[in-house]
Each structure stands twice: as C-alpha cells, then as structure tokens.
C-alpha cells in the first residue's frame, strides 16, 4: 500500500479539478502544489543535507526574472523561461554556492538571507534590465482557464517528488545525511563535502527557480518585492518544511496544505488580515518547541500526545 501511495495521491490530485472547482479554489490548489514543490526542494538542501537556507527567495526570484526578462526583451512566450531558468539558476547557484558553502550552520543561514536581500535591492536598482519597482507584466495570458496551469505545476511536483526520492535513496542521499549529521566525520570518511553540498544546493535551487518561472507565467506579474520577499517567500519556505516535517517525503506537502489554508483563513477574517505574520511566527515557535521535527517527522509523538489527551 505504502508503495502506491504517491501514485494514488497524484491520481487524486489530477482528478480533483475535473469536479468543476471555481477559479478561487483552483488558485488555492495551484498555490498548494507550487509551495509543495518549493518545500520539497528546500527539504533536499535543508532537511537532508542540513544546510538551512534563509534565502530561497533568491532562487525563486532568479527563476521568475529569467522568464520575465526573456519575455520583456525578446517578446517570445514566457514559457521559454522554464527551461531557461534551469540554466540560469544552476549557474547562479554555482556562483553563490562557491561563496556561501564555505560557511556552516547559522553562518550559512545568514549568508543566504543576505543573498536574498541583496538580490532584491539589485533588482530594484537595475531598472533597465528588471524594470525596477515597476516590475514586469506578462500581457498575453496563455490560458484563461486555470486548469492547465494546475496540470503543469502538478507535473513539476510529481517529477520533483520522484527526483527527491531517487536522490535521497541513492548514495548521494546518504552522503547528504552524513554531511548533515557531522560534516567533519563525513569529510574524514572521504566524502568530498564541498562537492556534495554544491550538488544539493544546485538541485534545490534549480527546482525552486523552476517554480519561480512558473509563478511568472501563472501570475503574469512580478516585481522585486514580491519574488525576492524575505518573509513571504524565504521564511514561508522554511515554515512549510518545518511545520510539515524536516527530512520526510510528505512533510513539505503536509506543511504546504497547512500553510496555504492557514494564510487563506487568516486573510478572510476581517480584523486579523494583516496579522498573519504574528500567527505564522507563533506557529513556528510552537512547532519548534513542541514538534521540532514537524508533523510528519514527529507523527508518533503527536499521536501519543493526542491519545494521552483523550485518556486524561
């Protein structure tokens, strides 16, 4: 049963829109799948390889801007941005990796955070390339119906899930976990830690960039404050994984459902709309103190908690 679970869920997700959901629900579904993709990619770097990145907005934004700039400069379809972003983000990740992967733990975290912020400022200032704060608008929408966007991102999600699974269960995955557990021990066992950390970073970055390029096509508008956002992209990425479950296959998916539902519910309550960060922050604090490995990671603990809660 467990072996077929991914296929069952994929089939279910593929059938859901055929029921005839309205445009708003389709939007939520698309966001949910997109955040699962970003969460899974972050999990590869942060969860398995132990390199906690606070700057995934940088990769997301570079992907989004690759598609946007290509469209704005050449006039061709922004969908070309998807394959192009793979190349652009991979190159970018190699350069960034060369700098930030020298650092460990919290220093790596802060360096990536700075990287995201720097890219935002750079994109705001390079007005002739990115349009600055005005942003880039995709004037011709490919489809009015959201369903095609949904199937595209669902395909990306399925491939990502499969890729993460293959990587994690291969030799590469064991190297990643070894690096996470003890980098010096991994190094002394003959693992080229810099090489494997670079691989993890590049893979993670490319997938996030792909989601960014999709975002440009789907939303039709990007500006530096949206795609390079620290709280709304980088931190939410971490939260998706932390809430769902670090270093688990289903964690990012669960986390993405919870985060998207939570943000939509909070937004719909009139007085609390602007307080969503307070709730996210408190959720983060609670999760870290009580379920440090997330819902999927601490599932047994959670079950036990609920059971003891019932008996007493």
């Amino acid at each position, binding site marked *: 049963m467990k072996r077929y679970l991914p296929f069952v869920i994929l089939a279910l997700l593929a059938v859901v829109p055929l029921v005839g959901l309205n445009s708003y629900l389709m939007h939520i579904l698309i966001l949910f799948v997109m955040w699962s993709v970003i969460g899974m990619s972050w999990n590869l770097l942060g969860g398995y390889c132990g390199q906690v990145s606070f700057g995934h907005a940088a990769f997301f934004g570079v992907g989004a801007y690759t598609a946007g700039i290509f469209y704005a400069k050449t006039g061709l379809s922004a969908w070309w941005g998807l394959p192009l972003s793979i190349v652009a983000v991979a190159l970018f990740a190699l350069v960034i990796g060369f700098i930030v992967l020298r650092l460990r733990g919290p220093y790596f975290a802060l360096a990536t955070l700075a990287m995201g*912020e*720097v890219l935002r400022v750079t994109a705001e200032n390079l007005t002739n390339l990115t349009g600055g704060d005005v942003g880039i608008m995709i004037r011709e929408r490919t489809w009015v119906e959201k369903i095609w966007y949904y199937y595209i991102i669902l395909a990306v999600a399925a491939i990502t899930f499969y890729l993460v699974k293959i990587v994690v269960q291969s030799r590469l995955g064991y190297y990643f976990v070894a690096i996470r557990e003890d980098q010096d021990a991994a190094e002394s066992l003959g693992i080229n830690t810099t090489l494997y950390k670079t691989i993890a970073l590049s893979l993670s970055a490319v997938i996030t960039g792909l989601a960014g390029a999709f975002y440009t096509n789907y939303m039709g508008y990007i500006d530096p404050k949206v795609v390079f956002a620290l709280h709304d992209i980088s931190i939410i990425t971490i939260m998706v994984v932390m809430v769902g479950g670090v270093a688990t296959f289903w964690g990012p998916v669960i986390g993405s459902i919870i985060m998207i539902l939570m943000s939509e519910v909070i937004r719909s309550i009139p007085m609390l709309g602007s307080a969503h960060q307070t709730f996210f922050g408190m959720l983060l604090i609670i999760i870290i103190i009580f379920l440090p490995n997330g819902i999927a990671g601490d599932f047994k603990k959670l079950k036990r908690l609920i059971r003891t809660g019932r008996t007493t």
Partner: protein
Amino acid sequence: MTAPQIEVLLQTLIAGFLLGGLYALIGIGMTLIMGVMKIINLAHGELMMVSMYIAYWLFTLFGLDPYLSVFIAAPVMFLIGVGLQKFLITPVLKVDSILPENQVILTVGIAMVLSNLAMLFFTSDYRSTPVSYATSAWYLSDHWKGSPIELSLSIPWTVSFVFAVAITAGLWFFLTKTDTGKSVRATSQDFQAALIMGVDVDRMRMLTFGLGSALVGAAGCLFIPIYYLYPSMGGQFTLIAFVVTIIGGLGSTAGAIIGGIILSIFESMTATYLGMGWAPVDRFVVFVAALIFLPAGIVSLARKRRLGK
C-alpha cells in the same frame, strides 16, 4: 582633488565614523550573545525596533528626551531579553531535533511576531522624534576662521556617538573587572569548563541575552534622534549587526567596535559616491570579502602578530 571634493570626502568619513559608534553598539550586543550561546539572534534588529518605539512613546507622551530614555528603555529591554531566553530559547536548547539550527529559526519566529505586532499596534507609518536640536550642528569655520574647507558636525550624531562610546566603556569595565563579567567571558570561552569552576551557566546565558538586548535597546534610543522608525526596520539592522560581528571576529568585543566603524565608513562612502539604494548591497560585499580574506575577523590579525613576537 579640488577643495570641494576633499570636503565631501572628509564629511563622508566623519559621518561614517560617527555612525560607526552606533553600529559597534549593535554589533557588541550580537557578538556577546553569539559568543556565550553560540546562536545567532535573528531578532536582534527587531529588539532594537521595540526599544525605539519605547523611546518614541516616551518622547511623544511625556516629552522625555530620547537620550534620557536610554535609562528606561535599556532596563526594559534587559528584562525582555531575559524573558525570551528563559521561556523560549532555553526550552528549545533541551529538545532533540534533526536540524541544529532550530534556535536560529526560533529567533526568526520571534522577529516575525515582534515586527508584525508593532505594525498592528502602531501602524506602518514612518515616525521620528522631532527633537529641537535635530538639525543643529557645529561648523569648523566658527572655530577656525581661516579654514580652507568647511566641515560640519551634527550635534545629535555626535551626542549619540559619545553615548555609544560611554556605554561601550562601561561594558568593557563590567566584562573585565567584575566577577559576573568574568563569569560571562568564561562561559563564552568554554561553558563546560566554566560549569566545573562553579559558574551558573544557565544564569549567565540569561544575563547575556538580557545584556545583549539592553545594548541594542540603548542603540535604538541613540538612533531615534537621527533616524526614523517603522515596524519592518529590524531586518536590515540584524544584518548590520551580523556583518559587524563577522568583520570583527565572532565573540570579540573589540573586533565589533572596529568592525562597526569599518562597515559604517564603507557604507557612507557608497551612499555618497554610488547612491543610497546600493548600501545594502555593499553590506554583502563587505561581508563576503571579510569571509574570504579574513574569516576569523580583525581580531585574528592582532593575535597573529602577538604570536609572531
């Protein structure tokens, strides 16, 4: 270089130097916490924002001068810091988890809550304290009639700088001359050894987090006469504190002072010659350069020389 160009250059250097004192104060708070607890406090800038709001409301409601509110805001921030350490960070140090960076992510959570609450309660308006002396300055030509160039020294900037130096000197005295200060430094160097020597490590950690918060709180009060205040300002100051700490060397107070001055001079040079918008980018440039060329910070240079002799 013509005289006006030299004037601009000198003026930029002076402004950078004065700002450096404040950056150093922010950086010292960070470096203390980092040294003793080995965690990065990503809520550092947000704590400064909280203290700036305290100073702002004291000024608006009671007309209290921001420089005097240091004596109220810093103790309040000390208590807040101790509370954060006791009720949030200590419990997290005890739980077992896959990622060791949980404490860092926790401080991000704290930062989000603080900045969002500030926005809810005080709206995201830009605020400042319109003190009477905000625009007054000393001019070089007033004191030296025949001066070939004209330089000015803003009074609030200078007062802030003097305050920052005084607080730093007081901290230095506390850390080197008192028993408690020595215990803090011992905890920072090797907490297990300190534990064996009878230092109450948990108490020292609380004290340090409180002290770091109080320092950044004091910096907030000194910043408000010369800067403006808005709820999301914390992030950039956290980054500044971190860059200062990296340049100076982790856990080194003297390094943080030099680091603060280097960063602020570099920043004011960028602002003068490249444009204000680029200042955050050069923070990253300084940061990367420091990591590549001086990974252990300025203090490593001093140490090397001492060993060489």
